[in-house]
Structures are given as structure tokens and as C-alpha cells.
């Protein structure tokens, strides 16, 4: 392989570049990214960056020295708009074409838009929102009670704003955590004095002078100075339409991140690996290792079976979850306690059990036992697959 192109210059793309060099690839390496910024980290955007505790320099994922060492050509601020798998070329928005022998797709996902509302996916989104939030106390309506919505609401509350969170489902995070622990997370909003309304959708946003009217399906209307939508993310696959790659809620690949073309792999939020698309930081950093091994080998040699892991910081609490929840799992608090349907003062650790074995763990402010339990899950997966 003489040229490898990575499309998407963020977390998964950068880790893929590092892996290529670490695994001995010494050919030409081109990284294409549509954002003008060098790779930066997204999780702090809704947390410490929004509250002003972390500045932009804390977001950088790499520095000039490392980039020089990677010896890659960085084409930033330019979007890839097409892929011709037969001719092995990537078409760029500015009309250029890149001939390439191997391709890593790392285009991630974009926030599902809601006209009239802020979204929070990119540094530019976060800059715009942070600027609005520093204008003094305001009425903020957050649409969506998932992780991003909840973190953003928590950050807004910490900044002294009056915050309402709207969630269409009866509880936030129901598919991820199940009813019992979703209720515990809902309590965090209530404790922080954030209003939390569930079970009603938004039918529209209307501009009313300087404010925005948020119309609800139940007939009520809320007035807001700032509306923020945290209603999910859509994988960035539009540029691949018309290529031979199979698409459908992500780029479809086998368990080793390899698409139907052995010289094309996909990693991170955009990749549907073995039927599952993960939108988590840790998967975006773990998948590139196997993907690059397989790309360089021309076939699937490595198929990792990582235990899904994510964390979230909300209302001063650190939530960590590993494994996979399925409806019907029994949830047991094994350390710490629940207090008034929320975490007790010292947090807690909860185990999700199926047929007598632990399949997932959730911790609030209990990092040490969580790490132990997460490792146990990892070992169990290894044993089951070897």
C-alpha cells in the first residue's frame, strides 16, 4: 500500500493515523477533515468547556510535534464528497481527487438538527453556545434528556441559568440504562433545581421577538431565551452515497471494521461494526487498532470484543457504565446506596444481572469498584470468545 487516506480528522481518524504509523505503515498518509480545526476532543464541550473550566487548549488531541512525527498531509477545512471504490479515488468538495490504495472512514456523526435551536457537536457549536451563556442569567430549554442534553443542562444550571429539560420518553436514558437507573438519573435534574418534563414531544419552535416559543404536543408553550437540542446524532455517510459501500445507520462493516471492500475500513461513530454502532469515545479510540491491522493485512485478522464503556459528568456526579443492558435484566445496588430515588452521598455501584451473571455495571461517583467490575466484565468476554 503506497497511499492511505483517512477521511475525518477527529478522534477516530487521529487514532487511526497513530495506529498506521505504530504498525509500521511508512507510505503516504493523507488526512481529510471538513472542520478547520486540528483534532480536538468532544466530551469536554458539554462539560468543562461550556462552564468555562477548560479552555480550547485543553481540548487539543495532538500537538504540532506529534503531527510532525506522524508525517501525514492534513487537508483541513475541506469536505470529502464522494468515493469511487473501483477507481480508488476520494473526491473532494473543492474539485480535487485523491488516488488512494487504502481508506479509513472516520467521519463520525452530526447532531440531529432542529432549526431555531443550538446543537452541541462541534467546537464551533460550543463556542456559539458558550458566548450566549455568558450574556447573563437566562431561561434555557434543553430538548432531549439523554447524555448530551443532561450534561448541557447541568452546565447551564451551574452557570446560574434557569433550566428546563424536555424529554419525549417517560424517562431519560431508558434504552441505555433501563427503568430503575434511568429514574435515578432523572433525580439528578430534580435535585439541581432543573425542571424536568417527560412524556411530551416538541411540535415546533417559534421566534417571538428576542425569545423563542417552544410548543409542546400537550398544548403547552414554554418561552426560552436559549433553546438547545440534544436529540441524537446521525452518522455522516451522505458523502458515500453512490459508492459501492453498504450503508444503513452507518457504514456497514464486519466485526473487524472491514467493509465489503477489503481496502476500506470504518471506525468510530460512523461505523456499524458487526451490526452495532457505538457513539462512544472509547470505541472510537479502540476500533482503529483492529481496523488498521486488517487494512494492512487486506483481510480480517483482528476482531476485538471490547466491553462497551461510557462516562458522563452531570450535576457534579460522574456516571460510568460498562456492558450492555437488555430489558429484563435485574439491577442490584451492591455498593453504596440510593437515597430518595437518587444516588446517596457516597454514590453507588449497581450490577445488571442476566441468568445469574453480571452483564453490565453502572456507577455514580464510585470509580474504584467500577474499574474492578469493568475489568471483570472484560475478562468474562475474553473467556467467552476464546
Amino acid at each position, binding site marked *: 500500500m503506497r497511499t492511505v487516506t483517512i477521511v475525518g480528522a477527529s478522534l477516530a481518524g487521529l*487514532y487511526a493515523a*497513530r495506529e498506521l504509523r505504530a504498525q509500521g505503515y511508512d507510505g503516504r498518509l493523507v488526512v481529510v477533515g471538513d472542520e478547520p480545526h486540528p483534532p480536538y476532543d468532544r466530551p*469536554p464541550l458539554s462539560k*468543562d468547556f461550556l462552564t468555562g473550566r477548560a479552555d480550547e487548549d*485543553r481540548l487539543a*488531541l495532538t*500537538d504540532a510535534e*506529534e503531527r510532525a512525527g506522524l508525517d501525514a498531509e492534513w487537508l483541513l477545512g475541506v469536505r470529502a464528497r464522494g468515493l469511487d471504490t473501483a477507481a480508488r479515488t476520494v473526491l473532494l468538495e473543492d474539485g480535487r481527487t485523491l488516488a488512494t490504495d487504502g481508506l479509513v472512514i472516520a467521519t463520525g456523526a452530526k447532531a440531529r438538527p432542529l432549526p431555531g435551536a443550538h446543537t452541541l457537536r462541534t467546537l464551533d457549536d460550543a463556542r456559539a453556545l458558550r458566548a450566549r451563556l455568558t450574556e447573563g442569567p437566562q431561561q434555557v430549554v434543553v430538548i432531549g434528556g439523554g447524555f448530551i442534553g443532561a450534561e448541557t443542562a447541568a452546565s447551564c444550571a451551574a452557570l446560574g441559568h434557569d433550566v428546563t429539560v424536555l424529554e419525549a420518553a417517560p424517562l431519560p436514558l431508558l434504552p441505555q440504562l433501563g427503568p430503575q437507573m434511568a429514574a435515578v438519573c432523572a433525580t439528578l435534574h430534580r435535585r439541581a433545581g432543573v425542571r424536568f418534563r417527560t412524556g411530551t414531544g416538541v411540535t415546533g419552535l417559534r421566534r417571538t421577538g428576542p425569545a423563542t416559543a417552544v410548543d409542546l404536543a400537550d398544548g403547552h408553550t414554554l418561552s426560552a431565551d436559549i433553546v438547545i437540542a440534544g436529540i441524537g446524532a446521525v452518522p455522516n455517510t451522505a458523502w458515500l452515497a453512490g459508492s459501492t459501500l453498504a450503508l444503513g445507520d452507518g457504514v456497514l462493516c464486519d466485526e473487524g471494521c472491514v467493509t465489503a471492500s477489503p481496502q476500506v475500513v470504518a471506525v468510530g461513530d460512523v461505523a456499524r461494526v458487526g451490526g452495532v454502532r457505538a457513539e462512544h*469515545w*472509547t470505541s472510537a*479510540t479502540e476500533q482503529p487498532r483492529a481496523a488498521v491491522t486488517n487494512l494492512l493485512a487486506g483481510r480480517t485478522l483482528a476482531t476485538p470484543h471490547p466491553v462497551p464503556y461510557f*462516562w458522563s459528568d452531570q450535576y457534579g456526579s*460522574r456516571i*460510568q457504565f460498562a456492558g450492555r443492558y437488555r430489558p429484563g435484566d435485574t439491577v442490584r445496588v451492591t455498593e453504596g446506596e440510593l437515597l430518595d430515588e437518587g444516588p446517596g452521598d457516597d454514590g453507588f455501584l449497581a450490577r445488571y444481572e442476566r441468568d445469574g451473571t453480571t452483564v453490565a455495571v453502572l456507577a455514580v461517583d464510585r*470509580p*474504584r469498584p*467500577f*474499574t*474492578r467490575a469493568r*475489568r471483570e466484565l472484560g475478562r468474562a468476554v475474553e473467556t467467552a470468545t476464546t
Partner: protein
Amino acid sequence: MIPVCRQEDLPEGESVRVDTAPPIAVFRTDDGSLYAVDDTCTHQDASLSEGWLEGCLIECPLHAAAFDLRTGVPTCLPARHALRTHLVTVEEGVIHVHVTVREGTAA
């Protein structure tokens, strides 16, 4: 020099956090050695005294960066900067850390 705890109160494989500013984590490894490093991970914001200790490596409980306690140097991503290390001594059965002053700050 700051007293931390009695020697017998820090068993092998355990750690303790000292609330200095910034906080320091003191570890006793499985072979009985004592080490002290800054408690806050250089990657983002996690307490290393809550991490996973294996040999001389401490793994961060948030994103799993590992640091060598002897040098403070990270052995894997996502951390890219070293921790400050601090000298540990035992006097009359009490563990003490000697806080290293950050370069460029007055003692």
C-alpha cells in the same frame, strides 16, 4: 513534608489521597514500595488514587491512561504529559510526602 498516615494503614496494593493543593496520591505497590504522584490525571479530570494499581503502573479510572509511578511518565494514551512525582519517607512508622514544588513557582 506532610504526614500521610501510619504505615500499617496503607496496605499493599492500596492508595491514599492527600488533600494538598493540588492533591497528591500515595501508593503502596504489591512489593511494599511507596510512591507518590500528583493525584489528578494529566489527561483530564480524574483522581488517580481511585485508579487500578498493577505493579508500578497506575491506570486512570476514567479513560485508562497508565502512568509509571517511578517516573510519572504516561505509558499509553490518552495522557500525554507526565505527573509530578514526590519523595516518600517513613519516619517513626508514619508515611510522609515531600511536596515537589512546581517549576516556576515560589517555594
